[in-house]
């Protein structure tokens, strides 16, 4: 029985231990699979799937007629997974040839110990085709949106631009970034350990919410007329910079806003930072003589003088204590309206003094000097309007009357001047007409003019100031803006620039400007042109800025189908 018992002994003992071990394995398996199930499911999900951003399409920027000013198009971007690349040399050779990249930099990128590196973003369609044809290992294409500005330089300061990730950096792109950008969605992609994506149908995903479209008040035709005129002006007078704004006098909507130098938003990096500044809102200037009609409105409003009153103009030289005022042309006496027509500083100073400091301050304060209008563009400046207590008793009143010691941005000034054109209302300037959802429905619309306040009576604006401003163009300093088909009413301005070095007025650097509205009997548009440091021997606003204003008004009114004067007369 020895063999039998040995058999039984050993099979039993081995069987017993095997069963013990198998029970142990089963218990351990149960611990992993059932007790710690949730923990491992989480870990598995984290490594097996990848959250992929679905970028939202940025909304359009449209002009008031629905023409696209800025648009986002799908383009390919090339990236690589260096860990999946085996032959760096071969890939570098192909990529640098197709994408025209520096091969040593590229191979360095590809040797990095990373799973993701951009090779080149936003490539052209031809390059995309080539890359797809090559189908290199470890080189992939991701589709993103790229911002295109099909009109190039046109309206660039208003529209602004974005960075490579489509984040707005300037202009409307910046101020309406929230509206335009929308909300990106995502999807979960199953992947394997080698990062190749495996698509399965039942994937968790959220569609992106595309951005809304912004419709501007800008009219691209008027914008083009304006920019053409600025270009002509710059060719002739070679200024440091020039700015023009066109405003609808009845609604406060900005129809055009342009600056020179300008830039192409498709290729921002090529331009200096000065070119990217929207000077119409970021820079302020002393208005000079352009303020005279505004001051005069206060004089008329308080019934301190009437247009036909005669003022002694001291023959061009007026001594006030330490200060001596000069006129560019000598006048013995002028009527109040002639003071504007010929832009007499002495006459204006005397009219200003009739107002007194306090009344002058209150009058100008109504026009919002020194405050932002809150236009929907970034970087708006408030200008300079000193508080009453820091006005000097002796000189400030005179200085302000002829447009010194006060400064306004071109936008501020055209808005203020518009109040004369529309019969006494100060309107809030507008650049956005409506927000349109990406389904085409209008989400928000800014209807009608928003009146800030009445700044002068209709009588003062229509009956007293309007004829004076018409006369200034017909017979006065603004002759060069005279048009045969439309009656233009405007005022020139010429101010000395302040020397940055010593804070004194410069004797050879001027800002020539002209602001006008037309047609005078029923104003439709108001145009301001400001020329900073014109050269070639002229600097008067009437010489450098008025012709451009005339041309802009002529082209714009024709475009707007406003009946010319002669035709009307013939019909009568």
């Amino acid at each position: 029985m020895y063999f039998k018992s040995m058999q039984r002994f050993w099979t039993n003992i081995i069987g017993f231990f095997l069963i013990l071990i198998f029970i142990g394995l089963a218990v351990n398996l149960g611990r992993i699979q059932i007790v710690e199930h949730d923990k491992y499911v989480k870990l598995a999900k984290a490594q097996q799937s990848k959250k992929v951003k679905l970028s939202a399409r940025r909304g359009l920027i449209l002009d008031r007629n629905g023409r696209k000013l800025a648009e986002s198009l799908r383009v390919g971007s090339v990236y690589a997974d260096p860990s999946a690349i085996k032959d760096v040399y071969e890939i570098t050779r192909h990529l640098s040839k197709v994408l025209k990249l520096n091969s040593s930099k590229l191979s360095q990128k590809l040797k990095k110990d990373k799973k993701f590196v951009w090779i080149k973003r936003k490539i052209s369609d031809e390059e995309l085709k080539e890359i797809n044809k090559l189908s290199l290992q470890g080189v992939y294409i991701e589709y993103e949106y790229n911002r295109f500005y099909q009109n190039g330089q046109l309206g660039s300061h208003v529209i602004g631009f974005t960075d490579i990730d489509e984040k707005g950096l300037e202009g409307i792109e910046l101020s309406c970034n929230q509206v335009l950008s929308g909300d990106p969605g995502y999807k979960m992609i199953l992947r394997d350990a080698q990062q190749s994506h495996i698509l399965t149908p039942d994937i968790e995903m959220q569609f992106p919410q595309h951005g809304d479209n912004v419709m501007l008040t800008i009219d691209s035709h008027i914008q083009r007329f304006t920019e053409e005129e600025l270009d002509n002006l710059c060719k002739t007078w070679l200024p440091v910079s020039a700015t023009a704004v066109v405003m609808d006098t009845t609604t406060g909507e900005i129809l055009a806003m342009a600056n020179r130098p300008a830039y192409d938003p498709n290729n921002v990096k090529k331009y200096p930072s000065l070119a990217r500044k929207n000077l119409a809102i970021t820079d302020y200037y002393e208005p000079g003589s352009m303020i005279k009609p505004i001051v005069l409105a206060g004089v008329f409003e308080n019934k301190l003088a009437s247009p036909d009153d005669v003022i002694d103009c001291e023959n061009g030289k007026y001594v006030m204590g330490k200060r001596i005022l000069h006129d560019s042309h000598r006048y013995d006496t002028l009527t109040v309206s002639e003071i504007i027509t010929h832009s007499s500083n002495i006459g204006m100073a005397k009219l200003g003094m009739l107002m007194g400091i306090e009344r002058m301050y209150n009058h100008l304060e109504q026009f919002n000097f020194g405050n932002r209008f809150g236009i929907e563009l970034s970087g708006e400046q408030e200008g300079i309007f000193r508080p009453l207590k820091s006005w000097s008793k002796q000189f400030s009143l005179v200085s302000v009357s002829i447009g010194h010691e006060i400064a306004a941005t071109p936008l501020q000034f055209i808005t203020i001047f518009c109040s004369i054109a529309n019969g006494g209302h100060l309107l809030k300037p507008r650049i956005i007409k409506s927000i349109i959802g990406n389904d085409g429905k209008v989400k928000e619309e800014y209807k009608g003019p928003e009146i800030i306040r009445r700044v002068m009576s209709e009588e003062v604006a229509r009956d007293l100031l309007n004829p004076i401003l018409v006369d200034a163009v017909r017979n006065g300093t603004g002759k060069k803006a005279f048009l045969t088909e439309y009656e233009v009413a405007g005022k020139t301005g010429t101010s000395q620039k302040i020397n940055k070095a010593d804070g004194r007025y410069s004797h050879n650097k001027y800002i020539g400007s002209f602001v006008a509205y037309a047609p005078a009997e029923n104003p439709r548009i108001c145009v301001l042109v400001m020329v900073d440091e014109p050269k070639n021997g002229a600097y008067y606003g009437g010489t450098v800025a008025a012709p451009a204003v005339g041309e802009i008004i002529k082209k714009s009114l024709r475009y707007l189908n406003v009946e010319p004067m002669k035709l009307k007369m013939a019909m009568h």
Partner: protein
Amino acid sequence: MKSWQCIVYIVVALLGFSIVTVYSTDMTMFAAGGKGYQFTKHLVWILLGLVVLFVMSVIDYRYLQKLTYPIIAVSVICLLLVLLPGIGTVTNGARRWIRLGSIAGIQPSEFAKLAIIIFLSNYIAKNHNKMHSFKRGFLIPLGLITITGGLILMEPDFGTAAFIVILSMLMCVVGGMRIIYVCFTLLAAVPFIYELIFHVPYRKTRFTSFLDPWQDPQGTGYHVIQSWIALGSGGLTGLGLGNSKQKLFFLPESSSDFIFTVIGEEFGFIGGMTIIVLFSLLLWQGLKIVSRTKDLFGFFLGLGITMMFGLQAIINIAVVSGIIPTKGIPLPLLSTGGSSLLFSMLGIGILVNIAKQSLKCDTGKLLTDEVKERRPINEKFFPVRIASRIISKIAAFSW
């Protein structure tokens, strides 16, 4: 149902699991050698294995006893050949394969497992009465074990070498080798094992990562953690057939060493338990056959083969569930790999034959032969006798 029939059914069930799981891992987009390549290869090996199983179950196992010396000689020669650079092919830094043509290959170490079992069975059966002596019962078997183990270690294949040493030692102990010698051998081997583990960098990292895999989840702890994630995300019922996500290159060797993990992920705890239960049944039936053998050679051969299956299954499952450090031991009958499958089937064939032979024999006649040499092996060593009483009581109960 007879035990050998049981065993054949269990083997067929395990092969069925294997086919389904290998199909699932191979039908991914990035399977090595193209979609379905591994699977077709596996099917061919299974068919070949079934033929071998049938052939071996027909041939009388006692015939093998006569072939002992040729078999062990061929095995040692193969182990030597594989070390020669022209013949052995290098995969993953080890020379473990003798290539036959471009597709098929033989792992001599798989053959060596069976060869050493046959050799030891023969040796113990012939020298059973002298197994407690130092020379016959210890030095000679140990010498052979050391030669075979050493050759496999030179490939290098630490896992298989260690497996063969453990298996042989167990057989020797059952055969009557003194436990005290085994203990001293183990004590003497400790410095060598230490040297082998801690002076070979990849084994050392395997060992340290086993202690705390989360220390370096992307590096040395990667395999264990990926296996845990696969098993854990399987849960109770699994992700469903073909839905394993970890097989997509997260799991290394998903169709060979880590096939149990994929089963656990796709079929859940239920699937994993099915495999464990199937193996337990296989071992139970194996031991049942062994306990009914009528000669010593048959007893040791059957026991050796059964323990070979049991130990491999235990080691593999323990490795993939992170209980012991990673070793390249396949799960018998389930993992892909031609040699392993072929020699496993060969072993099953022998086991089936042993079962059939013992059924044929007249039991009464054999018993009277045994009475003459009745001499309980554990009469001198008292604690073993006590332990065996207790254990056999419990085991008998559990049977």
